[in-house]
């Protein structure tokens, strides 16, 4: 199976070598020590759209004393295709020094979506995004205590819809 960017990144930092047998205690200790400082994290933003009015979407603040590396963004909408709302994911503050990418501040990431009753991955447009993010090494390293925000824009007048946006990534303990 093709390994995701997240796995490759994680394994590189923890010293896990696929196919390699851990055969002494020091190697085991090294992996466990590194793993204490790395972990996956999801930030999810549930959204409803009633007659084109978007519900209030509270921002999410990333964990104190942990850096956050975005490795995937995905959406789920009950409507599908071009009817799905448009989504913008952003963060503040934007600190160039802590980013592998210097732009953009907003990740105009997420496009429509799926037909109600089908799964996220089934949709070619939608699945493209997560896989693209995961496999093409498109990532954004953020500072600690970043404010993540999501903007949702209905695609037609009088739209009713429900869904969620997920921002996935890895957290790194800053050691403080």
């Amino acid at each position: 199976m093709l390994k995701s960017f997240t796995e490759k990144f994680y394994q590189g930092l923890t010293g896990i070598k696929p196919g390699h047998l851990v055969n002494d205690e020091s190697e085991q200790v090294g992996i466990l020590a590194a793993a204490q400082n790395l972990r996956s994290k999801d930030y999810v933003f549930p959204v409803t759209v009633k007659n084109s009015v978007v519900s209030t979407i509270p921002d999410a603040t990333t964990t104190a004393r942990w850096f956050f590396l975005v490795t995937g963004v995905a959406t789920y909408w009950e409507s599908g295709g071009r009817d799905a709302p448009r989504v913008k994911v952003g963060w503040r503050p934007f600190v160039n020094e802590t980013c592998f990418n210097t732009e953009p501040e907003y990740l105009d990431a997420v496009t429509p979506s799926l037909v109600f009753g089908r799964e996220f991955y089934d949709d070619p447009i939608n699945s493209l995004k997560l896989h693209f993010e995961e496999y093409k090494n498109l990532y954004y390293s953020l500072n600690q205590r970043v404010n993540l925000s999501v903007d949702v824009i209905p695609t037609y007048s009088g739209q009713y819809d429900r869904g969620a946006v997920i921002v996935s990534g890895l957290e790194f303990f800053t050691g403080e």
Partner: protein
Amino acid sequence: MEKLESIIASIKDTVYKNIVTKLANLFTTQRYEKTFDFTRTFVAKANTADSFAIPITNEGPFLQESYNIRFTENSRYVKDGNTVSFCGVKLRFKSQADNAAQSNDYIPVQLISTPGGQSMSRYGARPFLHIYPKADVLIIEYDNRAPDVLNGEVYTMADERIEICFNGKIYPVG
């Protein structure tokens, strides 16, 4: 030609010896690392938010590498007289030791499950890395309550059976 055959035979012999050595090593190295799956089947009761726990082994820390929501059985709702099937369950995972949720809120199964529809097997696993200390407890919180009514539709939630498997490695420690 004979020389070529001799080389091939030599390579085969080396490969065979390497396999035997590797297997012998595998037996030994399981003292330091071995693959492990925690699997649970549970019923998310209709109109309920609740949680349950999976104790991590006393053998050593568990490094979770991925999880697979292998199966979900339908919830449904009625819209314009038609019953629509969808998995309405949302999940959140937590380690008891650090009490830090692995997501800021419940996540719809649609966003974290691998391919497959409702009441069908799903294949593959979603990479999600987290270390649980020895003797920790993995807490699974679920929410199977009806969503907000959008436009007058009527929700009829059902008990939903879910199978989930957490894949990773145990690192036995003394």
